[in-house]
């Protein structure tokens, strides 16, 4: 007997929650307990009184499962709102930041700097034998930059995961 799984589509969910202990564990635990995927997750306090946090989760699943994920999140007591930024009509902007450390001297070092320029990555630290680049963009762009840096002495990467927000004047 084989165990099969269904193919899915990528969705970005913006979730506002009470900023209190255990909320993140509750949400990530819901994903593990029900077998949903988390591709990336970011969270930070977003209100002036520190009462609310915004969590951005990139997940993956067939449409009925995405609906389930939203309904399951929505019924958690500390969750205020769940918005699927991939819903029809919900055009949105996604960004991710990566810090990318590259070590090396000579041609590789020059090549790294040139490509960073093409990608509009900023140099945020340098030694005689290394750079740290800061790159901002969609996950795709960050992926491509990191892939190129592999050829130029990549030694370390830190990524934030995706934050996203819907286009237009309205708030979530």
């Amino acid at each position, binding site marked *: 007997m084989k165990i099969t799984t269904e193919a899915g589509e990528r969705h970005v969910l913006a979730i506002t929650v009470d900023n209190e202990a*255990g909320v993140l*564990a*509750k949400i990530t*635990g*819901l994903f593990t307990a029900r077998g949903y995927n988390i591709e990336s997750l970011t969270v930070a306090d977003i209100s002036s009184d520190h009462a609310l946090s915004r969590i951005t989760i990139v997940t993956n699943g067939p449409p*009925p499962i995405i609906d389930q994920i939203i309904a399951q999140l929505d019924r958690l007591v500390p969750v205020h709102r769940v918005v699927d930024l991939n819903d029809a009509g919900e055009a949105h902007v996604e960004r991710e930041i990566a810090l990318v450390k590259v070590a090396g001297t000579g041609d590789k070092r020059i090549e790294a700097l040139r490509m960073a320029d093409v990608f509009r990555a900023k140099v945020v630290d340098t030694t005689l034998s290394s750079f740290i680049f800061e790159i901002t963009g969609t996950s795709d762009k960050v992926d491509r930059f990191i892939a190129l840096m592999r050829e130029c002495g990549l030694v370390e990467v830190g990524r934030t995961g995706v934050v996203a927000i819907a286009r237009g004047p309205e708030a979530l």
Partner: protein
Amino acid sequence: MTEMSGADMVVQALVDLGVDTVFGYPGGAVLPIYDALYKHPTIKHILVRHEQAATHAAEGYARSTGKPGVVLVTSGPGATNAVTGITDALLDSIPMVVLTGQVPTTLIGTDAFQECDTVGITRHCTKHNYLVMDPDRLGPIMHEAFHIATHGRPGPVVIDIPKNVQVATGTYSVPEFIQHNSYRPQVEPDADAIAQAIDMIAAAERPIFYTGGGVINAGPDASAALRQLVSLTGAPITSTLMGLGAFPADDPKWLGMLGMHGTYESNMAMNRADLIIAVGARFDDRVTGRLDAFAPEAKKIHIDIDRSSINKIVPVDLAVVGDAGRALDALIAAWQAKGHKARDLGEWWRRIDGWRATRCLDFPEKKEPDADIMPQRAVKALFDATRGRDPIITTEVGQHQMWAAQHFGFSAPNRWLTSGGLGTMGYGFPAAVGAQIATPNRLVICIAGEASLQMNIQEMGTVSQYRLPVKIFILNNEWMGMVRQWQELTYESRYSNSYSDSLPDFVKLADAYGWTGLRIDTLGQLEEGIAKMIDTPGPVIVDCRVAKLANCFPMIPSGAAHTDMILQPSDVTGTMDDEAKALV
């Protein structure tokens, strides 16, 4: 606003919330609360013999009254022992508040004596939980916890209270009006959805109501509304295990329970219906059977208070989010406003009568007085003997549970207490204790299996202490019958560890605890034995010996469709493929 200790606040909040009973067990981390409860004038504390039993007793209390059950246990082992009952309450949507002691805030995280991460452990088996770090928060949290446990889809809420928070003083405050800032379940159904539902019901040629525990949770008025709507539409009705009692079993429109051990007529009617009206039921796998063959011809309306139940397993055509009772009221009002008349469903009923004619609940039996008692017969005899007494029936888990569901007729809600979602052996007896505490003058009977009963049998002491007249009626087949039945179906009768060896003498055990013990061995003794059980004041345990190898039919084997029911033992083949074996 009054200054008092945290422990006093807990007790004050219980009083303010109208709590009269707490099921619990003391320990170091809850001693301040126990002291605050000492000789309390209105709150009765029921001392159980194991914390799991406290949770099931609270469930029994809640299920028989509609009020939330309250549990008080200590930190560490007290809390972990409560986890099974908390999970049980989550799966069956039972309102419950569990207060757990915790080590002082200064010691949290140090592996202190009897420390466990209670909020971590219970995070995913509660509807919500709290760790209270500040005594000033106790009042608002207690009130909010009861609100959450009882509003929307009910469920268990844990409040973990460190010992220093119980001892410290603070200000007790009661929120005037609880409007949780993020938890606001939709109770009122959408009017458009109701209008659409009515049109679908009026147009259906083969409608069926499929109802569940949500109707019971919505209160007795919801059951009354259900009866009215069924009678207005003239449609047949079936229910899940959790929904029994919402609709009277002696009504001709009642088809019996559906699902794995449901009746042939209800499963066939679900399969052939052109419209299913699901009310407070969640298309559980015990109910649907093989999903791709589930109700292929039916449009589906799903009424549920929990949006996440809708389209979870079975995609539906119309979703109505709201309280079952409100939705049923709205449907009745809309039906009458539109002047609908019950349609002629004669053809549909003729087909149903055809399925009924299989008499799927009949069972083979010998009638001589010295014959073995068929377990189904024992349940029927118990039902007959208690008619008119309006008993509360609880069950353990196994064949006896299914036989009770099939052969005991319920005609009112809150009379049938069973562990449906989690299927917890050890639930039934403590649940009976809770129900008996809640309704001291009612006849409360636990229909038990000899194996399940032993999972919380220590509660005989609790019953003796509080002089509760609980009756335990054991269908003793000397087997974990349900396990044995699956081994016969799937593993060519290799009975791996399913024999109930080394059973105690239940009559002597009764004696040891100061109960009355009775034994019934043959069919001839059955009626008299049951009568004696009912007429004996105080707690009684009946060791009713039943046919050892009887199996529970009809049955939809795992992975099969509603139309592939096993109706009798001779249909059993004894093997299954791996796909079917992998299903529970």
